[in-house]
């Protein structure tokens, strides 16, 4: 009875304008509240990462100072303001001067030496680390690193995985055997050790470290995507429409790119979302082990590393970890929601 009604519904909606596959998946995803919350949180994290300099900086956003107007001193360097940090600047301001300050008036590398390793206070809402740097500011700026690493590493690993997986799945035989052997080799390597070995080899500095971490996570993490897309392609390959397009004389490249890959892409999207969570977690772990982001840059794992020297600083232990945990969780929720949304068995 129930199935019959459902059947009617499908016929009716097909008779009207079909919403299309992605619209359908989207509405399935949007239907659940946890998914909406997760997506909103992801948007918030992205926003924080993009606006980090406006949220936490030791220079104002707008400043009228001694008869001069400074636009965005938090982004651009003004030689005249170089000697001031926020506190000195506030002291030096005279009546008639005004400033629009960021919410957190500390840069991620501002050393407040009067407040070294202090717990949360009205000055430093989430406390300071062992060199007097504001934890909240470092968490805000650390979101950039984790977002950049996540996005780029996942792009890389999905790219490698889709390329090698589709080659293996489509051509089969010797190519498949060889590529699957490579997958097995990479899969058998102890991940963290190999990541550390690679980073020790590259020995990067500054933003190069972020690039290096993206690269090594991408280079190690692609195997599951490759396996997934290989399996999908083995399935799709035997379908009639692929045979039909080959019969029309389509080349291998065309069949793979136009027909096989687009039909296998949904599970890859799910895997990519989960991979985002894993990549962010790995970046944290690597920075924590001291092989990742250098100490003069802000990263969540790097902050957590400081706890090992100062086990009494609970605020350094809790807050960066919480940021990492929330980020990983929302990506996992989004991945789960996406997986359910593309699963036709769960469609309502």
């Amino acid at each position, binding site marked *: 009875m129930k199935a019959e009604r459902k059947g009617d519904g499908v016929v009716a909606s097909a008779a009207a304008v079909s919403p299309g596959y992605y619209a359908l998946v989207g509405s399935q995803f949007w239907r659940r509240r946890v998914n909406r919350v997760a997506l909103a949180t992801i948007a918030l994290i992205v926003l924080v990462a993009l606006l980090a300099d406006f949220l936490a900086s030791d220079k104002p956003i707008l400043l009228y100072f001694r008869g001069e107007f400074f636009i965005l001193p938090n982004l651009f360097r003004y030689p005249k303001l170089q000697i001031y940090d926020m506190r000195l600047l506030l002291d030096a301001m005279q009546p008639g001067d005004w400033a629009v300050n960021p919410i957190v008036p500390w840069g991620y590398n501002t050393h407040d030496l009067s407040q070294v390793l202090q717990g949360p206070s009205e000055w430093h809402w989430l406390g300071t680390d062992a060199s007097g740097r504001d934890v909240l500011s470092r968490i805000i700026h650390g979101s950039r690193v984790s977002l950049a690493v996540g996005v780029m590493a996942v792009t890389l690993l999905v790219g490698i995985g889709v390329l090698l997986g589709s080659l293996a799945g489509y051509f089969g035989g010797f190519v498949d055997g060889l590529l699957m*052997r*490579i997958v*097995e*080799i*990479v*899969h*058998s*390597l*102890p*991940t*963290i*050790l*190999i990541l*550390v*070995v*690679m980073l*020790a*080899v590259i*020995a990067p500095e500054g933003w190069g470290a972020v690039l290096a971490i993206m690269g090594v996570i991408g280079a190690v993490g692609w195997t599951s995507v490759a396996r997934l897309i290989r399996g999908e392609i083995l399935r799709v390959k035997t379908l009639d429409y692929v045979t039909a397009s080959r019969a029309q004389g389509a080349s291998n490249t065309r069949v793979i790119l136009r027909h096989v890959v687009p039909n296998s892409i949904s599970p890859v999207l799910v895997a990519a979302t989960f991979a985002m*969570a894993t990549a962010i*977690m790995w970046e*944290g*772990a690597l920075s*924590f*082990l001291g092989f990742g982001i250098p100490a003069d840059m802000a990263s969540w*794992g790097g902050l*957590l590393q400081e*706890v*090992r020297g100062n*086990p*009494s600083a*609970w605020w350094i*232990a*809790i807050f960066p*970890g919480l940021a*990492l*945990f929330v980020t*990983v*969780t929302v990506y*996992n*929720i989004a991945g*789960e929601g996406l997986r359910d949304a593309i699963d036709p068995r769960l469609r309502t």
Partner: protein
Amino acid sequence: MLRFIVRRVLLMIPTFFGVTLVCFLLMRMANTDPVTADLEAGVRGYQVSQEALEHLRQLYDLDKPWYVQYGKLVRRLVTLDLGTRWQDGRPIAEILGEALPVTLLLSFLSLSLSYLVAIPIGMYSAVRQYSLSDQIITVILFMLYSLPGFWVGIMLLVFLASGGYVNCPWTDTPGCFPLQGWHSFEGFERMGFFGKVGDVAWHIVLPIITLTYASFASLSRYMRTGMLETIRQDYIRTARAKGLKERTVILKHAFRNSVIPIITLLGLQLPFLIGGAVIVEMIFGIRGMGLVALEGLRMPDYPLVITIVAFTALITMVGILLSDILYAVVDPRITLGGS
């Protein structure tokens, strides 16, 4: 079955060489070696002579081309004549003999624990699907699954071991658990057998928790899914229709088929466990394979690091093979190796 095992074991050989080659090339790409890194800058202010440097390079084969180095390394791995550690000249076999049992102890204890807890929890929450307890369990498992392992380790260390926050209710010491190591540094030798077991157990409580909770969470989730699929099968309805008790239906009929998927995960858990062990060993200062490898990497002592990577890769491959065999043993419908 035998043919399948033989074929898989043979396939492990090229994979094994691939693993060592990848690791070797990576480490040699660094273009530094202990001789260059440490001695060229001089020792205690004295310049080390070129002859001495050359002699050291010769001693460690660093002057030979890479394929000679790799060949020697492989020969040593295959003949199990592992050589000595550059740092202090101790035999690598001896170092591994100390480190491997520790890592294996951590991994297997955590693996068995997570299976022991995950199976009943997964079953319980599947049988009570959509109930309040199921929803609470699902949310908790999901959160555990997303918790970064090294963060959990740090939090346990800070709050339970450092003694800064919690005064232990059952001992008079400020922290409940030791900060570092897998056994007491003093007096461990003099303890009796049970004393030693107790001491080790006390030391590895926090590391085991850190290592276990994530795999336990993902296993429970798989178990729940497997169970949910199984109890929708016709034969379960038949079993109920026969008038069997619900208990018998679940524990005897549904249980067997629903554990199959998580048994195959056994092999896949191993690389994660060993990877996680590196971090846990580092946090809790436990001298297992991971910590030894990290130390070797600092040198950089490439034979030591590659030996450890090769060993862990071997354990991983054997684990995957075992889980495939186990899969066929528990599920007679599966024939290995095809036609």
